[in-house]
């Protein structure tokens, strides 16, 4: 999987509005689906306990609505993705087909995980998010365009300015959101930093432990 150097400048598609504050990662992907050594299959399991009843029958949930099928932009409210560090959460959302997330605010680890996967996470004010969600509800087949370099979203004649973390923006636009290559270029500095850490150079872990 060489995902490096894929530049993310723009995402266009329909919008899936998902309302609610503090939607945590246990709701996004319940822990029992983490019992796997790959990320495969997570796309079908996203929000499983809210989308299906105990017998597996679909419930009324935005991720089940026919009208939002194929949506690429998820619009959420406050503190989305709080809870665990599980990358399974953004993986599940991404594998469901979402390519960008816009919300009022996000939990930090979740937002960082999204950037690592090349998913832009952008924010707007409460009023703007609510207007966006309402518009998408009424016009589920309308195309929206999210621009990353001058962060904004356009739909019809309307444009809403968005905010994005600067470092995340640079990483997406430069195609360096998969940070590993960049980090590995600093091998000499890594060794030099390690060598000056007292707990490595002057009182390391005893050899015989374990």
């Amino acid at each position, binding site marked *: *999987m*060489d995902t490096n150097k894929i530049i993310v400048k723009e995402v266009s598609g329909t919008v899936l509005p998902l309302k*609610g*504050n*503090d939607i*945590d990662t*246990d*709701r996004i992907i*319940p*822990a*029992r689906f*983490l*019992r*796997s*050594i*790959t*990320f495969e299959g997570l796309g079908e399991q996203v929000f499983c*306990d809210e989308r299906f009843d105990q017998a597996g029958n679909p419930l009324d949930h935005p991720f089940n609505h026919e009208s939002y099928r194929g949506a690429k932009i998820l619009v959420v*409210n*406050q*503190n989305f993705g*709080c*809870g*665990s*560090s*599980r*990358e399974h959460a953004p993986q599940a959302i991404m594998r469901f087909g979402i390519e960008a997330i816009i919300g009022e*605010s996000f*939990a*930090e*680890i979740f937002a*960082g*995980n999204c950037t*690592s996967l090349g998913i832009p996470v952008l924010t707007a004010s409460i009023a703007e998010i609510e207007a966006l969600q309402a518009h998408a509800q009424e016009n589920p087949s309308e195309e929206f365009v999210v621009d990353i370099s001058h962060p904004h979203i356009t739909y019809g004649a309307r444009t809403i300015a968005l905010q994005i*973390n*600067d*470092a995340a923006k*640079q990483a997406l636009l430069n195609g360096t959101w*998969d*940070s*590993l290559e*960049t*980090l*590995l270029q*600093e091998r000499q*500095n*890594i060794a030099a*930093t*390690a060598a*000056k*850490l*007292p*707990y*490595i150079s*002057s*009182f390391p*872990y*005893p050899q015989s*432990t*374990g």
Partner: protein
Amino acid sequence: MSNNLFNRVWDLHKVSSLSETMDQLFIGLHLVHEVTSPQAFQALRERNLSVLYPERTIATVDHIVPTQDQRIRPFADSMAEQMLAAIEINSQEFGVQFFGLGSESQGIVHIVGPENGITQPGMTIACGDSHTSTHGAFGAIAFGIGTSQVRDVLASQTLALERLKVRKIEVSGSRSSGVYAKDIILKIIAELGVMGGIGYAYEYTGEAIASLSMEERMTICNMSIEGGARIGYVNPDQTTIDYLRGRPFSPEGAAFDKAVKFWQDIASDERSTYDDIYQFDINSLGPMVTWGITPGQAISVEDTLPIVSETSESEREVAKKAYEHMGFSEGQKLLGTPIDVAFIGSCTNGRISDLQEVADVVKGRKIASTVTGLVVPGSQKVKKEAEARGLDRIFTEAGFQWRDAGCSMCLAMNPDKLTGRQLCASSSNRNFIGRQGAPKGRTLLMSPAMVAAAALSGAIADVREII
């Protein structure tokens, strides 16, 4: 003007500036467990990379292990078996020390690090787990990461990160009997909110923190993430030094003295500056209990539940959702609410002092016949020590089940789960919908002693009345 511990540790570990806001940071200790690592090891294989600092990497298995008949392989759950096999193979192939089942050091990753002296002040510590903040109790900068970052640390021992702001949380006063570290952190989260810490590292300080044991400090730092803060820490002091002396991974002799000097120098001092300060007094603090679906929805046990229309506008929607899920009514008391399950354990409250507190409450008493009680030690070492003290007998005589070490019903990735709409009094850290394994299951977070009190009376009770 002087730096605080957070910034001192950061500067010491900075490898390079990646952009105006992004630094490359060396990670002094990488802890690995079976849930968030298999895809990361696989990515290394695909890119033909090795683990750069295997001696700074330690793995264990905790989330998926059964707590009954733990050593019988293969596990009944074939998916759990596959995950255990994967971390066994990965740690062997990549040369990483692994505390597997059968090792006397196996246990919840955030309990294993501290109790072995692996976690030390002034380190940067990362783990694919949000409760890595626990290790901050030692004055380390410790935080949770996702699987792509686990891959980055394995391959480069570094991460691309933005520096956080630091909020000093100064806690004054002293605890009354029946009030524990868990109550302090639940109160802080209730006050500052579940988003209050976003963008911040929390430095816990003040007389009330200084008087806490290391294990109590771990409980507080553990739940920083529930308040939105990815990092929480306490400056190293004599309590820290005394705790670390003589642990298996602690330095010895002259090396220990050098370490102490470094630990003392790295701590914040009176001249340290902060981005924000929050002060808070615990003289009147009582036992806290959560009633909703976020750890911020907590009240003092004698209080009544909030009236939705009286809460702030941003809280209303979640409050409504919480009432819907929990089945409680606005304005009611939690005291006397019958519970079905009592769970003692987790990286928040699964250490020996937690088990001792529970034993002190339940000794010579019986839990209600309507309650299923589970005591799950956080590690093999905690288990061994508890048995040496005879706590296991106190628990089983009281009607609790005494289990093997692991995460267990904290997130129910193993066979320990709630069923249906069961209500669980839990010493863990998250009351999210579905967290304990049943989509409609319900969780009330509280201190271990409060869980014990609830187990004895079969309903939410005030532990102060029985100790």
